[in-house]
Structures are given as structure tokens and as C-alpha cells.
């Protein structure tokens, strides 16, 4: 068996109903589990960005990216290793407000972990943390003794280290693919 690694796939697409389904069945068909997926509008209107994290062999990941690229509405799809991108996840931890009764330990934890307190309500507070998976995990470990009521973590979003600019990239595609057959 080929060695499996964590890959990030980033795709720019047209905003079309059903495209998410078309993208995910590419993974389903190969029985690949998607670790996380994020879809959102880009700075260009009508263009979405998919960020998909998958645990796969390099060959498998490459084939999947080619299949994604093959979808008509996909403008471009790229395969990245962690070192090729800046990436973050967002986590929120809900704790009982009583945690403040222990002096300022919580505030210290929040500060030392580069997190912030998002809300303070009468019976609960929410701490927000942006970072890599292991950083969020570390914070989680620190907070556990205080009684975490609920925890939620987003999928990864990522941006490549290249200097490509989305709108000029799109203009290039338009010039290449339209009326130029």
C-alpha cells in the first residue's frame, strides 16, 4: 500500500447548484473519506472556492484532483501539501460562566493560546480559537478540566503561497477558453 498523507485540495468553481454533489461523489466512488470540506464565495462574484482535506496516497489524491478538474464548472483545482499553503481552522468552546470563579486562570489560558473570549453570558461563555488542528487540540486539553459544555471546529480553509491573483487568473481562462477553439 502506498503511504497515505494529508492533502489539501483547493478548487475555484462557478457557483452552480449540484456542484458540491458532483465533487463529493468523486471521493465516494473511491471510498475516500473527506476529512473536511469548506465552500464559500471568493472575492470574485459568482466564483466559489472549495477547500477539501483528504487523507490519501499521493497517486489517489492526484487522480481525484484530475477528476475534479474535469468537472465542467470547475475553473481550476490544485493539490497541496501543508508546506505549500497557509491554513487555519476555527474552533469555539462553550464553558460555564463559573470558570471565572477560579481567578484569572482561564484568561491566562486564552491569552497564552492566542484565543479570545467571544461572548460572556450569565450562564456560559464562548472562547474562539483560530489555528492549526494541534493548536486547537492543545487548547481543548487546557480547557477540559473546566468543563467544556460544547466544542465545535470548522474545516480547514487554506490559501496558497503562490502569487496568483484570482481575478487575473479568471481573465486568463476566459481569454484561453472562449472563442478560441
Amino acid at each position, binding site marked *: 500500500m502506498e503511504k497515505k498523507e494529508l492533502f489539501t485540495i483547493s478548487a475555484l468553481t*462557478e457557483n452552480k447548484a*449540484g456542484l458540491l454533489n458532483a465533487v463529493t461523489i468523486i471521493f465516494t466512488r473511491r471510498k475516500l473519506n473527506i476529512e473536511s470540506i469548506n465552500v464559500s464565495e471568493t472575492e470574485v462574484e459568482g466564483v466559489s472556492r472549495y477547500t477539501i482535506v483528504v487523507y490519501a496516497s499521493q497517486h489517489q489524491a492526484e487522480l481525484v484532483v*484530475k477528476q475534479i478538474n*474535469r468537472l*465542467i464548472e470547475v*475553473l481550476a483545482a490544485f493539490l497541496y501539501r501543508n508546506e505549500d499553503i497557509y491554513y487555519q481552522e476555527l474552533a469555539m468552546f462553550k464553558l460555564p460562566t463559573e470558570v471565572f470563579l477560579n481567578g484569572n486562570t482561564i484568561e491566562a489560558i486564552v491569552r497564552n493560546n492566542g484565543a479570545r473570549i467571544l461572548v460572556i453570558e450569565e450562564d456560559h461563555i464562548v472562547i474562539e480559537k483560530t489555528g492549526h488542528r494541534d493548536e486547537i487540540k492543545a487548547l481543548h486539553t487546557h480547557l477540559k478540566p473546566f468543563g467544556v459544555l460544547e466544542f465545535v471546529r470548522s474545516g480547514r480553509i487554506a490559501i496558497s503561497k503562490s502569487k496568483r491573483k484570482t481575478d487575473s487568473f479568471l481573465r486568463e481562462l476566459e481569454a484561453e*477558453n472562449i472563442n478560441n477553439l
Partner: protein
Amino acid sequence: METLVKDSNKQPKPSVKGATPVKVTGSEAIILSLLSEGVNEVFGYPGGAIMPLYDELYKYNQQLTHYLMRHEQGAVHAAQGFSRVSGKVGVCIATSGPGATNLITGIADAQVDSTPLVCITGQVPSQLLGTSGFQEIDIIGISMPVVKWNFQVTSAHEIPEALAKAFYIAASGRPGPVLIDITKDAQFGELEFSYQKCEGLRSYKPVPKLDISAVGRAATLINQSQKPMILCGHGVLLSKAGKALKSLAEKADIPVASTLLGLSAFPPTHPLNVGMLGMHGNYGPNIKTNEADLLIAVGMRFDDRVTGKLESYAKQAKVIHIEIDQSELNKNVQADVAVLADAQQALQAITTLVQANKHTSWLAEFEACNAIENQKVNQPELYPTQGAIKMAEVVRMLSEKTKGKAILVTDVGQHQMIANRYYQFNSCNASVTSGGLGTMGFALPAAFGAGVGDVKRQVIAIAGDGGIQMTIQELGAIAQYKVPVKIIVLNNNFLGMVRQWQQLFFDKRYAATELVNPNFVAIAKGYGLQAKGINQRQDLDSALNELLASKASYFLEIKVEREENVFPMVPSGASVSEIRLA
């Protein structure tokens, strides 16, 4: 008997309301869009959700001929057959729900065999979407894995653009099936119609720009090679690259082997033609795959039926892979030079850089293999003197009598392999078969479509007694429209190909492969077709003459040897070098 099939080229060009917008209904807009794309024939089956469109088909029956098939699977296979012989986009129409789901097998078949189709399905009114209303099915979701593109139209004004994109996407690049699902209210709705052909989409690059450096590297490999071999795939036919391939092969003196779907791209009698690749291909090209120092694969995708066991496939050879679909490159076989391009463009560019060469002793090795295969397999198959009729002799005689000029539409199984092994295809796009999906039931409706798509060539369907029964109802369409296709059923009273595997790999345990068959001749006659059945060698010649001479459709059942096996054979999972001759 007069034929009702019109030569599509001779039909008057319909006047299409184009430039100045006119107010029409959605369903009329569908028709006008089809006419704008040059469509003159469609295959389909009506039902509730598509009735508005059928009402317009009725009004436009002078410009657009609708062929009523007997099952939606028949309609989609007919559209495939039509496309495969004519090079045009095949169009089929079905209603929502079961009509749409019945198309799926054919759509999947067209996807894997790169056949351009536009499939139009009716859908329940948009307010019923997602309610499990009568005959509502999520055909967009169901078809998603097997289409090149699909789109649901819920408003009349979307129709021209959706269809323009559909035709553009289906036909360009690596062709494939597109499905357009149109709600009933969109068909009834009104729009200002004007049609603009799609001239490109920014997210879709059908024809990649030829990479000159890859061309150069490919030429260098060819110039250095002592034992090169060309693998000619379906892409050669799709990009009309037969001539370009021939130029390259002749200039550098390279043997040419074809995949099943690539057959008929390169003349069978050409001295450089070394036959068919794959599980039931020829001995030489299979054995020599593992001795060649260079494979030049053109418009093919290294399917497992071609490569056998990948771990021992052509490990000694360098590989040039010319392919228009980027997702096929480095998928199964790692290419030393991957040329992402249209086959014709790439071949022409490579040929100019290739030096004239001779590979006399290499070619002689193929000759030697050929002689072995000929003696051990082909001669006894092609010229038996006793026992029951053999499939191969039928095909040989057909090939001789038609001078290889017919279109052969084959079903799936032993007869398919035998027919494609022994018929000497003398014209392009002449072998219509279900390759990648191996869909039994393909032949009869695909032959109908081929007969509509090409009225000049003789169309002969060859099916087994198993496969013919999967779509036998299409005899009804053949009779109704008097499409003069010839039908040969090679009856061995078995699901022959499965029985062969049972014999060879399951100790002859014939589980569920013996067939008790109906009286095929009576069935064909029941449909009003001329029909005959034979089981004696001495009747074969005259029966085939009668079949071929008939102006109308003709059904011939030939009882053949029951337990015949197709050889050579690369057993499933074995290496191409382990090809067996018996």
C-alpha cells in the same frame, strides 16, 4: 420495400428563428434549439412530464423525425449508435421518473465509451420538485456520476442557453453524454427565443494547447526506439486522426495495434496492422507489449481489459501517451512522455519530427506470432469442415461478402469478440460496440440508430441469444420505421462468455448460464420482419446471401456450436504475456 429513413443530408435546412427574438413556448424553444444545432432525428418515448414537447414534435415532424423506440434504454442506445457512425451528437428524449431512470445504462455506456449525447428528460412541475410527486425522481442526482454534464431547467427562458451548452459540451474535447432535465412548467412557459451557439466556457478547456516540448520528447523517443508499437484507441476515430496515424506509422515503420474501440481506424489489410489488443485480442500485440521498447498510446485509456495485470504490463517499455482527457494521463500507466492534446494535432506534429525508419526484424516478430495464432486458433475457427457452425466462420463469410464495408453493431459476449476479431473493417467508425461498460442489449437498438445515422452503409447487428432478449422489443421500432438493419443472432443456447469462464475458471459449474430460448424466428416474424433460422453449414452461404441482398430488415438466427471458447485469451488478472491460445 420503400424505406422511410431519410438521408439527413438531403433534408431541407429548416428555417430557424434565430436573430430576431420571437415569443414561443418552452417546448417550441427546445425544438428550435435542436434545429439550430442541426438535429434532424431524435429517439425517444413519451410520458406525462414530456408531453408538451411531444406536442411540438408533432407540429415540427417535417423538420425533425422522432423515432418511437420500445423502451427508453432502446432510445439511448439508438442515439449512441447514431452518433458512433455519423460523428454527430445523438439525441434522445424520455419522460420523468421511470422514463429517465431507464436511460441510465445507456448514459453510463456513452460516458465510458466517449459518445456525444444530449438526453432530454421531462420533469414534474417545479413546485413539485422534492415532494415525491408522481413520477418525480432526482435524475440530476442519479445521473451525476455518469454524465459529462447535466442541468435542470426550471424556467422557459433558460432553454436556449442550456441546450447550446449541452451540445457544445457533449461534442467537444473528449465527447460524452449530457442530460438536460426540463420541468413541465418550463415547457409550458413562454420566452423570447433567440439562439446563440455556445462558443466556449471559461471553466472548460476542451482541446488543450499542444505542448511543443512534449511533442519533441515524443519524437526523440520514437527516433531512438528499436521496437516501437502504436496502440490505437477510440480517440483516433473521434479526432479523425486515422490518416495522421497512418503517416506516422508508415514514416517510422511502426506496427499498429488497436483497442476494441479503436478498430476500423487503421486499415485491416495494411502491412503494419498487427491486430487487436486486449483480453481476446491477437497473440502478437499482447505478447509484444512486454517486449517492445516503446509504446505510443493514442486516444486510449489503458483499460484493464487491455493491460491485464498492471504490475507486469510493459515494464520494460518507455511510454508515450497522447490523450485529450487529462484525467486519463498517468492513471493506470505512468507515461514517460504525456502529450495532453487532440490526437490528430499531436500525431501531425510528432510525425514532422520523426525520422524515416525501418523496423524489419521487429515487424517480422509480429509475423511469426501471427503465424502461430493463425495455425493454432484462426484457421480451425474460420474454416471448420465438420461439427456445428462456428461463430468465426459466419463472421468470415460476412466479411468476405460485404468486402468489409458494412457497419457491424455487436452486443456483448463471445460473439462480440469473435466478430471484432475476424471482421475486416474497411471503413471508419464501422465497429459499434459497447466496450467500457459491456452492456448486453446494446446491439439491436444501437443498430437501429446506426441505420438512421448512416443510410449508405449496410448495418449488421450481431447478438447472442442472451443479449438479444434484453432489448428484443426494438424489433418493433425496426419494423415500424422500416430501418433496413440486418440482424444475426448467434445462438449457442448459453450465456456463452460467462459459460466460458465457468468452464475455464470454475470447474465447469454452469450456474445459470444455459438458456431455454423462444422461437426467435417466430418472434421476428411476429413483428412483421423477414426471418429465417438455420443450423446447418450447407445453408449458411445462401442464408447470408439472402440476408445481405434483402432491401428490408432481415432477421437470421444461426444455431452455432454450444460450447465454443474464444481464444486467444488473457485470463482475468494475468499478464498480457500469459495469453493463452487454448
